[in-house]
């Protein structure tokens, strides 16, 4: 079961604070979408509006073309996997997973079979009689997923579900979530503030900031071609070099660069891994200030000779042999020029 979700001009205020500014978003059936942003950006509010826990001040929510704006949670084809799992402590795992079916009036035997099937899917089939407190964090996580999926929802909402897990387990659960989503085909709407998690699971990432959508696209688009300085910075580390238009090219502290710039000027954004000893864009000579080994790469700070106060961060490959003080020619690839942030 799967469905299309459509937010139409959703506007929401908590008292005097505006959490969402006329947000429009369409989510395709079967899509794994991630709402990404810092805390307070409105992503959780948007999820709560979709789940029916919050009624928006203005705007409409459509699921499969039907207006659901004022329908309570139990009337919606959505279920939620909560941040703290919200399992029922007094019930066995089987009863937890079967709860939604019980509320839908499914008879005991079929609902137990279905619960067992879902527990098998998440690898906890042998623990059906246990209580939630006997499980580890990762296992509770899986039970919460099984419980939410047992009623075959059209849309599954995931509210920072992996936040409480350690890094290794989080990676593993990301892979599992993605695999399970492929298998059941349900539309997944996942909220997180972790951009690596977003890229690991999403078909499409919606970057949010201060109640607005900054950028919406595939992980590659959002990471490599960010639409705004905010989304560029939020998706990962970025070197920012102010540039102004000059003739056909750009003027920067590094000297003239062969890049088209709008008349208002802008910011040249370069990812650290896109700066090195080869590339399409020559950045001129620079002196290595210091370096650190990070396992997957060397993290280096360079001071361009033409602008000694500027620092460029570059990630150089493991094999690179470098000593501080050396002067090298730097090049960059994948340059992106973005307009200055609007004075907000």
């Amino acid at each position, binding site marked *: 079961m799967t469905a299309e979700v459509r937010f139409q001009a959703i506007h929401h205020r908590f008292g005097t604070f505006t959490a969402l500014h006329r947000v429009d978003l369409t989510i395709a059936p079967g899509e794994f979408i991630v709402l990404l942003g810092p805390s307070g950006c409105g992503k959780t509010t948007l999820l709560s509006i979709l789940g029916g826990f919050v009624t928006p001040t203005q705007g409409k929510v459509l699921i499969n073309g039907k207006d659901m704006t004022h329908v309570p*949670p*139990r009337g919606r084809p959505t279920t939620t996997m909560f941040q703290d799992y919200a399992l029922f*402590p007094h019930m066995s795992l089987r009863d937890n997973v079967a709860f939604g079916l019980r*509320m839908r009036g499914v008879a005991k035997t079929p609902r137990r079979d279905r619960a067992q099937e879902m527990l098998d899917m998440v690898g906890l089939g042998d623990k059906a009689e246990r209580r939630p407190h006997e499980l580890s964090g990762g296992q509770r996580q899986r039970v919460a997923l099984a419980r*939410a999926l047992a*009623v075959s929802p059209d849309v599954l909402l995931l509210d920072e579900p992996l936040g409480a897990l350690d890094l290794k387990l989080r990676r593993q659960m990301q892979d599992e979530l993605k695999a399970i989503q492929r298998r059941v085909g349900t539309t997944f709407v996942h909220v997180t503030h972790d951009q690596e998690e977003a890229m690991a699971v999403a078909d499409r990432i919606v970057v949010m900031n201060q109640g607005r959508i900054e950028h919406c696209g595939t992980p590659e688009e959002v990471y490599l071609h960010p639409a705004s300085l905010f989304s560029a910075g939020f998706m990962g580390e970025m070197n920012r070099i102010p540039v102004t238009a000059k003739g056909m090219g750009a003027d920067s502290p590094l000297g003239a660069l062969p890049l088209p710039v709008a008349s208002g000027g802008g910011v040249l954004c370069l990812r650290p891994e896109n700066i090195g000893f080869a590339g399409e864009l020559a950045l001129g000579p620079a002196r290595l200030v210091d370096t650190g080994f990070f396992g997957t790469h060397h993290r280096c700070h360079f001071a361009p000779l033409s602008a000694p106060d500027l620092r460029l961060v570059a990630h150089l490959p493991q094999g690179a042999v470098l000593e501080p003080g050396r002067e090298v020619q730097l090049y960059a690839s994948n340059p992106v020029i973005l307009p200055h942030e609007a004075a907000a």
Partner: protein
Amino acid sequence: MRILSWAYLVLLFLFILLPVGALVVFSFQDGRLPVPPFKGFTLEWYAKVIADRDLMAALWNSFLVAFGSSALALVLGFLAASGLARVALPGSVLLRGLLIAPMTVSYLIIALGLLQVFNAVGVRPSLLSTGIGHVVINLPLCFSIIYAAMGEHQRNALRAARDLGAREWQVLALISAPMLAPALAAAFFLSVTFSWDEFIIAFLLTRFDVTLPVEIWSMLRSGLSPATNAIGSLVFLVSVAVVVTLEFTLFRKSRS
């Protein structure tokens, strides 16, 4: 220092338990008065008390009033706490204060108020009116114990239940009440205890059928007797049994 602290402990317990101890000891007094010296051991007073029809009727009345009023106070307190925990009304602080307010009013004042109200609406003094009085004093207790036990964890589980399709009564009966079981039991048995030995309201609001404290009081009017000690000891035994059972079942569980 060790000796001092032990001595302090012993003194403390003596202070708390000496009156009850004396009551129990002199209930076995082989004589007409429950005062020293102790003249010998007899179970005669217990036999007399158990054979006393009025006393046994009062015991049964107390039992009815205690359990009936506590059950009602528990249900009302649970519903009030659930409602106030779920929605933030503009005046919810005031509402909570209003619900707890009767706790701060003396039982005598509450009894006088109830007496006048019952007179005005034509309800005769009876076990029923006493029971209503006990609901008035125990509802704030039940409400505050249950409300305090509702945490963020609870709220999220209730949200999850609604999300999975539960109706409000199902949320309350299948999720909220079982999760709050220790608090519900504590509130219920505390209410039973308070109702069980409440005197002033029962005294003013009963007439022909009386509760045990009122019956004991009328026995005392004809002077001290080891028989009153015996009935007191029996009541004490019941209370201790309830507390010990609770301690070993519910409260132990909720701690783990």
